[in-house]
C-alpha cells in the first residue's frame, strides 16, 4: 500500500503540475480537495483520467468520486480493490 501511495504522489505531482511540491510534502491522509492539497474540479477530471489510463479503472458513477478521491490513501485503497 505504501509503495502505491508513493507512486501516486509522483503521478499526481506530474499530472496536476504541482511542480513546487515534493512527494514527501503530500500527507496521504489529508483531503485532496478543499482543505489539504486544495485541488479543484478540473483536477478531479485529471484524476479520473489518471485512474483509467494508468490503472485501467473506470469510474462509472461520478458520485463515487467524492469517496475515492478523498485522500491519497482512499485512492490507493480503491485501486488495490479494483485493479484487475
Amino acid at each position: 500500500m505504501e509503495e502505491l501511495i508513493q507512486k501516486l504522489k509522483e503521478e499526481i505531482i506530474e499530472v496536476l503540475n504541482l511542480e513546487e511540491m515534493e512527494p514527501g510534502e503530500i500527507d496521504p491522509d489529508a483531503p485532496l480537495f478543499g482543505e489539504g492539497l486544495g485541488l479543484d474540479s478540473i483536477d478531479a477530471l485529471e484524476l479520473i483520467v489518471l485512474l483509467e489510463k494508468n490503472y485501467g479503472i473506470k469510474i462509472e458513477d461520478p458520485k463515487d468520486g467524492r469517496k475515492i478521491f478523498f485522500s491519497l490513501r482512499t485512492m490507493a485503497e480503491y485501486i488495490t480493490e479494483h485493479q484487475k
Partner: protein
Amino acid sequence: MEAYIRGIGNISPQHSWDNILFPGEVVRYEGNRLKCIEPDYKAYIKPIQMRRMGRILKMGVSAAGKCLRDASVDMPDAIIMGTGLGMQSDTEKFLTAILDNDEKFLTPTSFIQSTHNTVGAHIAVMLKCNKYNFTYVNDNLSFEGALLDSMMRLSDDPSEKILLAGIDEITDSYFTITKNAGFWKEDIPDNLGLLNHAGSGSIAGEGASFFIVTGEAHPDNYARFAGIDSFYKPESDKEIDDFITAFLAKRNLSLDDIDLVITGINGDPGWDSGYFRLQDTLFKGKTLAYYKHLCGEYYTSSSFASWLAAGILKTQSCPEAILLNNSKVNKPLRNILIYNHLRNTNHALILLSAC
C-alpha cells in the same frame, strides 16, 4: 476616433519589462530565433494559479497585470486581444495526446487551454471581469483588429479603459515546421545583422504587448493611437502609395507631418523590396526605422512596434538601434507611422501621435 495609451505592459526578446526603451545595449541573439525575456512569474502569479498555465498564458497574465497597475486601473471596461497562434503550446499538447493515446484518456487542462481566446478569458476570470471580451485571430492583422475594435468602442464611450493586447509565442514544433517551409534564415549569425544577411527568410520571434487605452486625455498618457487601416494584396506599387497617402489625408495629415516611419522590414529580400522601394519614392527624405531585428517576425509584431512608438513619443528620443541608414531624427516627434505587411498579403498602417 482616438485611443490614448494610459498604461503599458510588455514582454519581448528585449529588456522591455521595465518599460524603458532599451536600457544599455539591445539584446543580441545567435541564430534565427528570438525568445522572450520573461519576468519572474512567481512575483506576479500565485503558484496555485500558475500550475496549469502554459508559457504564453503566464506572459499574458503578468503583462496584463503590469499594464493595469501602470494605468492605475483595477477593472478594465473591455478586454480585447489579438493573436495569430493563440495557445499554440497547449493546442500541440492536446493534439499530441489525441494521437499518442489513440483518442482516449484525454485530460481537460490542455483542451480547455487550447483555444485562441484563453489568454483574454483567463485575465477576465482572474479579475472577475464579466465585461466585453474579444480575441481577434486574423493572421498578421490580429492586433490591428483588436486595435480597431478598441478605437470604435472609445468613439462610442471615451471614458472606457480598455485592455488591448497583441500576443504570440513560438513553440519548438511551430518553429521547426515553419523553418522547413523556408520562413527563417539559415546560418544567420545574429539578429542584429538581419539586414546584412542576403538569404531568404526572416528570424522568428514572439512577444506580449499590453496597453490600457482610453478616449480621455491625461498627463500620464504615453501617446495616442490616431489611426488604423489595412489593405489586402495590392496589385501595384501605385495602389500602396495611394492607400498610404489617402490614409494620412483622412486624418488631415500628409507625409510632411510624419516624423518617423517604422517599417516591418524583416530581412527577407523578396518581401522587403517593397519597403525599400518606398524608401526611395514615397518615403524619400523621411526618417525610417525597422524593429523586427529586436523582436523577430510574428503575427502580432506590430504591437511591439506600437510599444516602441509610444515610448519614442513619450520620451521624445529614438533608439539608434532601430534607425535605417543612419537616418536623422528631427524633433519634436509628433507623428509616427507604422507600416507592416506579411509576405505582401495583409498590409497595415498604424498611426501614433504625441499627446
